[in-house]
């Protein structure tokens, strides 16, 4: 293995390749900040450039830089303006944006960068050691287990079900699941619920929905309530506390440790990917956290930010296991990378490690170099990136609106999409004022399609729902998922009842 590592290092570490990776990281970070252009589209755009380089190792190194840069860029827009342009960074905005509102934008970006780095590092180490073994395990996962995995992913909604809000969070999730059924799906033959609107044939677009329910209500609220935008101005003006303190490092270290492994394992399964890993990471860490730490989730918890950031990066690395060892692209991004590899005359699959070890190891080493360079490049840039929030309100809000419009237009090249965006944005703002949590809607929407497809496949294969209890893997995952959804609400209710009982006792005692 170490021979391979050395081979990879010697291929990857030349001056030309280092320039490539630096350029890739910068391009990825800046383009990734535009909502609507995720790692997948940026890599697709960069493929012609990569191919023109000619040398597969150099091309891959550049693409790895672009990839990590784009992921970091995506987290940046989630944290700073609550506009997650990629599904994998939706969970990042749950705690990243509240932190930015408290004036901790710099720290939030630093935590995101550091936890991504560690997630990627552990991912690469695991990739070194276990790639071939894990590939066989991943194949044991069938549609039944995937369905159960989606249910576990849905449990992330529990984080938004505060006291008296369980039904509201569920209602929003159901709304998201309903929206996911609009348009054509992979398994069925005709579009559903399009109401005759041609533009809805391919369903609601993720970017449009994410912008409409996260970024727009925030921007509208800043206009509606001048006091709120004042908070934003003050917070953005003085970017304090960029450094992560020792206490904070101690707090997030175990989170990073757990989530790198969990995220990697989820990433290994083809089709699950970074999005599920980030939601699951968030849900699991919230359940593990105790007392005050748990209440802090959703309001700017550093643990809540570190968890999804670590998990999605580890999962991205994990998704290379099936690609490199089996030739199966487990996610959209790896599918595009597969295309790039084939164009560069490299065919990933079981023989890659034997036939062209230098490429196999160069891919892994270049992934890691991309990760390191990103950290070195971006940590010094963070104070400047965070300054975005210091832009005066009269300019910041029009720019946020413009970037949401651009994000949903670039993806579809369709002006109707912009009308849908504005409409959904207004509805989402009203729903937010009615005190409904909006994140569950997006979680339901993202997972809905995969949930239905896998469930339908499992039901059609077994001709019934018996797979839920007959397949032990499915059963265990389902129990975990349902437990994660209802346990927090039950725990909170019990704590509340105990508090009331205590108060009553006290009252009686005082009365005596």
């Amino acid at each position: 293995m170490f021979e391979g590592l050395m081979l990879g290092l010697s291929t990857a570490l030349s001056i030309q390749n280092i320039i490539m990776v630096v350029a890739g990281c910068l391009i990825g970070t800046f383009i990734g900040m535009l909502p609507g252009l995720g790692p997948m589209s940026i890599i697709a755009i960069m493929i012609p450039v990569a191919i023109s380089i000619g040398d597969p190792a150099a091309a891959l190194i550049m693409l790895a830089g672009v990839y990590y840069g784009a992921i970091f860029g995506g987290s940046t827009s989630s944290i700073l303006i609550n506009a997650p342009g990629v599904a994998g960074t939706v969970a990042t905005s749950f705690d990243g944006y509240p932190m930015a509102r408290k004036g901790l934008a710099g720290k939030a970006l630093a935590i995101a960068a550091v936890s991504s780095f560690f997630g990627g590092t552990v991912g690469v180490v695991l990739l070194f050691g276990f790639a071939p073994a894990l590939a066989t395990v991943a194949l044991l996962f069938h549609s039944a287990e995937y369905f159960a995995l989606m249910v576990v992913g849905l449990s992330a909604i529990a984080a938004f079900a505060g006291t008296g809000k369980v039904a509201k969070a569920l209602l929003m999730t159901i709304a998201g699941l309903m929206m996911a059924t609009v348009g054509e799906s992979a398994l069925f033959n005709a579009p559903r619920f399009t109401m005759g609107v041609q533009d809805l044939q391919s369903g609601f677009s993720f970017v449009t929905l994410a912008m409409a329910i996260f970024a727009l209500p925030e921007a509208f609220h800043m206009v509606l309530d001048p006091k709120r935008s004042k908070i934003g101005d003050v917070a953005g003006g003085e970017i304090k506390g960029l450094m992560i303190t020792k206490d904070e490092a101690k707090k997030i270290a175990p989170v990073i440790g757990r989530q790198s492994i969990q995220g990697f394992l989820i990433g290994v399964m083809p089709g699950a990917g970074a999005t599920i890993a980030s939601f699951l990471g968030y849900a699991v860490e919230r359940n593990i956290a105790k007392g005050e730490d748990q209440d802090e989730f959703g309001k700017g918890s550093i643990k809540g930010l570190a968890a999804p950031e670590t998990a999605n990066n580890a999962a991205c690395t994990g998704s290379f296991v099936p690609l490199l060892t089996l030739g199966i692209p487990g996610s959209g991004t790896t599918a595009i990378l597969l295309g790039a590899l084939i164009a560069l005359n490299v065919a990933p699959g079981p023989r890659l490690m034997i036939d062209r070890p230098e490429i196999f190891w160069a891919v892994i080493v270049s992934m890691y170099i991309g990760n390191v360079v990103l950290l070195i490049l971006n940590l010094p840039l963070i104070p400047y990136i965070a300054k975005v929030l210091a832009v005066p309100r009269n300019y910041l809000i029009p720019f946020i609106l413009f970037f949401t419009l651009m994000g949903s237009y670039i993806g579809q090249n369709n002006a109707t999409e912009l009308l849908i965006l504005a409409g959904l944005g207004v509805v989402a703002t009203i729903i937010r004022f009615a005190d409904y949590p909006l994140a569950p809607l997006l979680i339901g929407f993202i997972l809905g399609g995969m949930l239905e497809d896998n469930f339908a496949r499992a039901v059609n294969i077994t001709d019934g729902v018996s797979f839920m209890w007959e397949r032990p893997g499915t059963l265990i995952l389902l129990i975990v998922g349902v437990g994660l959804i209802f346990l927090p609400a039950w725990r909170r209710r019990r704590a509340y009842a105990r508090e009331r009982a205590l108060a009553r006792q006290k009252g009686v005692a005082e009365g005596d």
Partner: protein
Amino acid sequence: MALDRWVAIIFLAISLVYGFAAYNYPLLPFERNMSFLPNTMPMSLSILGVIAALVILFSPKKVADEGLGDLDLARVREFNILPTLGLVGAMVLYALLLRPIGFLTATALFIAGSSIILGERKFHVLIPIAVATAVSIWYLVQETLGIFLRPWPGFLS
């Protein structure tokens, strides 16, 4: 009645309409024999939606508003509703005009217009920023990334 109940009532109506549409979904002949139909999940979702909406409608009023101070409905009268509606209107206009008048003009007008709605009056700063943004984003998206955005009005290009 509180706003959240109104939302629940509207959602109840949507669930019923959605359920009705799912129930009447025209199945293709071969689909009838499948165990899982295209309307299986939608029908179950509509039932769950109705239940969730009813639970919200009939649950006792919330104990106390916890930590939601940043969404204060009591101050609704102080809210700047007109500028917000103006911004929504600007977005709709942008959507309608983007193709006919081209990306550059539409974007510069949108950024300048929405800043003016928000009270910006320094035109010597505002107009150059709006134009520079439009041109640089167009250059980045079309020339660098190769995604087509029609820069000028339809009759010019």
